[in-house]
């Protein structure tokens, strides 16, 4: 367990609405080991961003973490005062988003923004910080660092802005980097560059990365493990190779089959019928039940528990009820 950097336990995050509390994240548990890259994959609305915002303590009003624990280096982040959380954000845990251009200050030169980030978290003279900023810009693979320092965000492409965001995130040598759809707005050739960069940096900086994406293909090449989310819950969790090659949950199985693959020529795609249930119409049993080709009577009424299939492979489905529960 010494290897574990972050442990999320039974996290529930809900929105207060006129229809009552909507549990957008409902009982999510996973851990992130030091130095690993874990992918969180799910369709839009499955609760990926909300899970990461819960870790950062940045859940937007009227949302709220209702219950659960989030241990970072053994300390429960949910019990910290906001002032203590501020210190952890940016220093120990950093986050980057899909639309980097919006996250950057449009009227401030890129170099200055990195300098600011460095000086918020540590004592450094402007000169020292400037030198570090230049070095970071080089590290994230920007071809002409000296010129980039003086550029405004709108003068840079989407890919370059994302690199600046990564430089800002790295400026304080975080132990954990949460990247929420960092390549979704980018073209495939640029996406490949950014993914390679993230993979390289986590080794160089010895940091853990949570890579959030709706695209299974994105994590396939870089992640060690993945968590597959559906409607606010984790359906399957484990080694990436295991899950891609031998998916166990009916949702993961359907998802993988339904994605067109370059190397396969087929006339028809497999498709999962129906749509994701709305938050206020979540079934009381398994959330995938209405769309599941293997659903049993039990599935409609009883929420399945996380089961351990083998060392480190978890699945949340009644088909595996005879296996050992993860909570024992």
């Amino acid at each position, binding site marked *: 367990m010494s290897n574990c950097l972050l442990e999320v336990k039974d996290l529930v995050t809900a929105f207060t609405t006129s229809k009552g509390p909507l549990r957008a994240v409902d009982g999510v548990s996973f851990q992130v080991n030091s130095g690993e890259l874990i992918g969180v994959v799910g369709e839009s609305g499955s609760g990926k961003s909300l899970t990461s915002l819960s870790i950062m303590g940045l859940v937007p009003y009227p949302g709220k973490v209702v219950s659960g624990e989030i241990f970072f280096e053994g300390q429960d982040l949910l019990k910290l005062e906001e002032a203590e959380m501020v210190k952890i954000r940016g220093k120990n845990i950093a986050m980057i988003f899909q639309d980097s251009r919006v996250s950057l200050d449009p009227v401030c030169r890129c170099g200055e923004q990195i300098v600011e980030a460095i000086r918020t978290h540590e004592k450094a003279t402007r000169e020292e910080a400037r030198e570090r900023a230049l070095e970071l810009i080089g590290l994230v693979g920007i071809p002409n660092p000296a010129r980039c320092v003086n550029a405004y965000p709108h003068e840079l492409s989407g890919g370059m802005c994302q690199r600046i965001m990564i430089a800002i995130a790295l400026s304080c040598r975080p132990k954990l980097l949460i990247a929420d759809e960092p390549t979704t707005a980018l073209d495939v050739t640029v996406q*490949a560059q950014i993914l*390679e960069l993230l993979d390289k940096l986590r080794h160089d900086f010895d940091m853990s990365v949570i890579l959030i994406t709706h695209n299974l293909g*994105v994590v396939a090449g870089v992640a060690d493990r993945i968590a597959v989310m559906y409607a606010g819950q984790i359906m399957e969790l484990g080694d990436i190779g295991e899950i891609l090659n031998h998916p166990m949950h009916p949702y993961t199985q359907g*998802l993988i089959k339904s994605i067109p693959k*370059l190397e396969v020529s087929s006339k028809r795609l497999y498709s*999962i019928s129906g749509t994701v249930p709305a938050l206020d119409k979540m079934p009381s049993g398994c959330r995938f039940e209405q769309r599941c080709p293997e659903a049993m009577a039990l599935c409609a009424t009883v929420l399945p528990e996380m089961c351990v299939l083998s060392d480190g492979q978890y699945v949340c489905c009644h088909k595996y009820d005879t296996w050992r529960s993860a909570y024992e």
Partner: protein
Amino acid sequence: MNESLLQVRGLKKYFPLRAGMFSGQRGQVKAVDGVGFDVLRGETFGLVGESGCGKSTVSRLILRLCNADEGEVIFEGDNLLKLPRAAMRRRRARMQMIFQDPFESLNPRMTIGEIIAAPLEIHKTFKGSEKEKRIRELLELVGLAPDYIRRYPHEFSGGQRQRIGIARAIALNPSLVICDEPVSALDVSIQAQILNLLSDIQEAFSLTYILISHDLSVVKHMSDRIGVMYLGKMVEIAGKDDLYTDAMHPYTQALLSAIPEFDTNKKKQRVMLKGDLPSPIDPPEGCRFCTRCLQAMPECATLEPRLVEYKKGHFVACHLYPDKAAGVRDAFMRVKS
């Protein structure tokens, strides 16, 4: 089967670029710069390339939703770009479009029935009860309940709205349907449903498709032949299997290798492109890809390669493939006069 339904020749569109309110015109966006290809009757022709390379502009030029600067679009025998307005309007019933964002393209104040009826009314094909019958029939065809006819777009999910867009597009029995990023805004588990629906409808009505997408896996799955665009130019055209197993243009090779691989056992040797897409306002001289190409040679920076048929049915625009038949078959660049 090998008959062309649509022939595009030397198509060109430069958008004027205005820098500020008072400074007048400052250069041009070379959005589409001499693009040519054929679409065969009954096939799906895929158009792939990164955002901004001119795919949507090509489709808008074909339908004359914006005016081309140069070129020919020959559809069922006539050059559409020279057709008088009234004749073009009649012809437009034969060519329809499906858009990326089904919500943006549906009027929120119209019921589903009215939305689907709009093209039927413009072209006066069906009247009264016959019209309502046709709409119900169309809804059923795209997998929606016929009773949805009086509902509004906001009551539907993204996938359902795309079904409505498809019903509207096929209402007039078109022969050509241009699908511009039809599944890009949809969730993965819904994409497959819509792609299958598009295939079923194509078969049922013998439609010809142009399928535009930035996602090569989607294009490869759906298409018979594929054209690859880069910065306003067509760089390669080939049958889908040929393109996948024997990509010739270095850009196509990079695009294929950038696609995230599913199989984790096979860590692929990536052809990693450096840098970003140059601006279409001031594209590189010579080959437009020369600034990012790993195999660029001196002539690439000065001489523009032409799209030539290097192998049967496989066209490529790249100096790595010497133009054997120069002058004989200057494939799709020439505008017939």
